[in-house]
């Protein structure tokens, strides 16, 4: 079956613009995660969804970042008024159920803020 997909694969935007990043998890996976990977850095946890609700938003770096998930499937990460320090690869992962050990990652969206 299809894996986790993300779009766009690359996004270049100007400082101050809003961007939306999309994640389509593996069908049937109830848990969905967003991570940020800066150049040469590890994976920074942003937010976790269980179904449509987000029990853990602790990783969102500022109120410019928000995410939603509708229908227990597709999720959108929105960054408002982008800053240059937001440039990174944004990775989405899903798992079969909330307590599942294995997360399946998408290929990521590379965001560049000029």
């Amino acid at each position, binding site marked *: 079956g299809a894996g*986790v997909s993300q779009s766009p694969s690359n996004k270049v935007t100007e400082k101050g613009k809003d961007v939306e990043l999309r994640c389509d998890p593996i069908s049937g996976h109830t*848990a969905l995660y967003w991570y940020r990977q800066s150049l040469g850095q590890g994976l920074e946890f942003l937010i976790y969804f269980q179904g449509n609700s987000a*029990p853990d938003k602790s990783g969102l770096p500022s109120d410019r970042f928000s995410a939603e998930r509708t229908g227990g499937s597709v999720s959108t990460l929105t960054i408002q008024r982008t800053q240059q320090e937001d440039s990174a690869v944004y990775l989405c992962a899903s798992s079969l159920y909330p307590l599942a050990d294995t997360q399946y990652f998408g290929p*990521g969206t590379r965001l560049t803020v000029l």
Partner: protein
Amino acid sequence: QQQVKQSPQSLIVQKGGISIINCAYENTAFDYFPWYQQFPGKGPALLIAIRPDVSEKKEGRFTISFNKSAKQFSLHIMDSQPGDSATYFCAASRSEAGGFKTIFGAGTRLFVKA
């Protein structure tokens, strides 16, 4: 208490040699320790994982050694091959209300010379 410290940051190994990557954690509540492998332009993928009730797990050329008292674990890649060249992330996870919290190390870039 939430950190997972990974070393080295980068590693160069000759083909056929042993690659060793080390990780240390602080929070004794962690109960699952996966390793992820990431190739350029791809999302991380689960490679091998261990629970703290065993001290070693082997899958093919990949072995995790786990030292619960020292709160350390390591990945050994035997007979390293050029195709193993990738970035490796260790992680530590714990179950908590509403889901599974995973903390990733900063990653190790492995290059295997032919």
